[in-house]
């Protein structure tokens, strides 16, 4: 069976064969033998090619969260639309508020050219200031807030578009 998972902007494709509870999985030309044994409500043992990995899993709707070795991975089940949009246009970075807070300073204005990793905006929440950075090279095409604004979780802040997508 074919399955896809989306993490961030990446799409992962799997081919899974269910052999009565043990799974043969192919991803990215690698092959795995895996099993999943339930321990507790969210706690699992995954036996991967004979080695035991402790994993915690939660699934809600179309999102699957996996905790492994201290890190949390949030996967989503991509929709058909997701798949095509992911493949075509990856040239837009829409920055939204990572938590409710206050805009300390907008660093870039509309039309300004920015490089990957450059700071776009400083927000403050939980007594800490964070600089949000561009993940692509491009130009600022939208600024939705101004200094001092209070924003809710997920509120759009600033958008950068890649140069290529400008030309398209």
């Amino acid at each position, binding site marked *: 069976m074919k399955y896809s998972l989306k993490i961030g902007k990446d799409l992962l494709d799997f081919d899974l064969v269910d052999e009565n509870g043990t799974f043969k*999985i192919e991803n990215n030309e690698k092959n795995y033998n895996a099993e999943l044994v339930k321990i507790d409500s969210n706690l699992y043992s995954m036996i991967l090619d004979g080695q035991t990995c402790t994993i915690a899993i939660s699934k809600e709707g179309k999102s699957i969260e996996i905790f492994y070795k201290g890190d949390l991975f949030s996967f989503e089940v991509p929709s058909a639309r997701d798949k095509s949009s992911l493949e075509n246009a990856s040239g837009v970075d829409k920055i939204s508020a990572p938590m409710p807070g206050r805009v300390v300073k907008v660093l870039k204005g509309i039309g300004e050219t920015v490089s990957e990793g450059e700071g776009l905006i400083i927000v403050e929440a939980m007594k800490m200031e964070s600089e949000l950075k561009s993940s692509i090279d491009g130009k600022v095409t939208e600024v939705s807030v101004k200094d001092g604004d209070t924003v809710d979780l997920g509120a759009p802040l600033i958008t950068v578009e890649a140069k290529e997508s400008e030309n398209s």
Partner: protein
Amino acid sequence: MYKKILVANRGEIAIRVIRACKELGIKTVAVYSDADKSSLHVNMADEAYNIGGPLPSESYLIGENIIKVAKKTKCDGVHPGYGFLSENAEFAENCVKNKIDFIGPSAEAIRLMGDKITSREIAKSAKVPLVPGTEGEVKDEEAVSIAKEIGFPLMIKASAGGGGKGMRLVHKMSDFENSLKMAKSEAKSAFNNDAVFIERFIQEPRHIEIQVIGDKKGNVVHLFERECSIQRRHQKVVEEAPSPGVSKKTREIMGDIAVKLAKKVSYVGAGTVEFIMDQKENFYFLEMNTRVQVEHPITEMITGIDIVKEMIKVSAGEPLSFKQKDVEINGHAIECRICAEDPENNFIPTPGTAVYTKSPQGPGVRDDSSLFNGYQVTTFYDPMLSKLIVWGKDRSDAIKRMARALDEYIVLGLKTNLGFLNRLMEEKDFISGKLDTGFIDKHKKLLKTPKTSLEISSLAGVITLHAAADSQTSQRDPRFTPWKYIARRSSVSRNSMF
């Protein structure tokens, strides 16, 4: 001894104080904001009272209301924990005015050490070393001789300055005069004021602090140092005791100095004298924290002294239960602050719900946490979830145990720094004790989640997806969830050899 103590705090430190009280046979009263209705500290206290809205300024910071609760519930002591009102001299004073003991130093001591200038003056008078430098403006004619006296590397800073303007780091005498000129001209153009001062620049500084504790009979004892150099956002994240960078001799000198400083202000209770130290063990006073410190457990682990119980006892008038000569370092302890934050994204806090958690157990592991399944991290308070503390017979033993304990820790539902901490325990420079406050910046690779973890997680993810899809097509019993399905089926076929 106290009969009933009000704990004027929340989270793990409130729980810590409640545990100490329980072990001392003292009743406890918790206070809580609207956001903390179902917190563990509320559940563990004998009584609990709502004191207002979720913002600290609406609840935990309103001393007046807290004192009202203490009076109404007939408490004879208030323990402030850390943060909130713990270093508020006025609150300490008001407790006493209302005939309730403030469990900590006197309002006077808090005031003196809380003021940057006064505390420096007291430190100077107690012969505590300060970072060498001119406190005031440097005149051109004296600059060279001052620079010689201070030594290199040194920093020239604009008196009116900020933001790096008019600032110059100078490594050797031959560069000094030129740098001074440039700094002054930069300061002039930036602030219209060319006054500058000079300070020794501490390269690769370590954060070292001495735990002290005093009683009302005038005894003050130090409990050795803690190293807290692993910091992000200028906040500590990993602490250890003793420091791998402090020699026995320096330890003694630092300890004696800290005790002298505490005695200058007749210090009662637990306090911490913070120093900045260079890699050659030259150390300089930073400030004194007049309260119990987040990282106090590591000192408890290596000395066997229960700092929170001891501060309650001395506040009640008992003499310290030990003398300086009785305290010894036994083994090594490390604390990791487990926080809801994203190391890959500049350690930005990650509010949300910890839907499933599992805490490590076994030998040498202590978990001071406020977590439970369903615990909510809000934007109102610090995103610290737990303090994981381990003890080992030596530093290497403690690091391996911390690695093992971190590996057992599970927090599902929000991003935490657990993965980063996991990787830190295997980082060569950490293991060899080469620490300074710039450590994390120098080891950015620790912030990245490993590719193999993503790979393994994605496999678990796709099996989950498959099980969900599979159970949807073959569903008979509505309670036969994908989870049960996976557990029931695959457990049977697990590696069987016979």
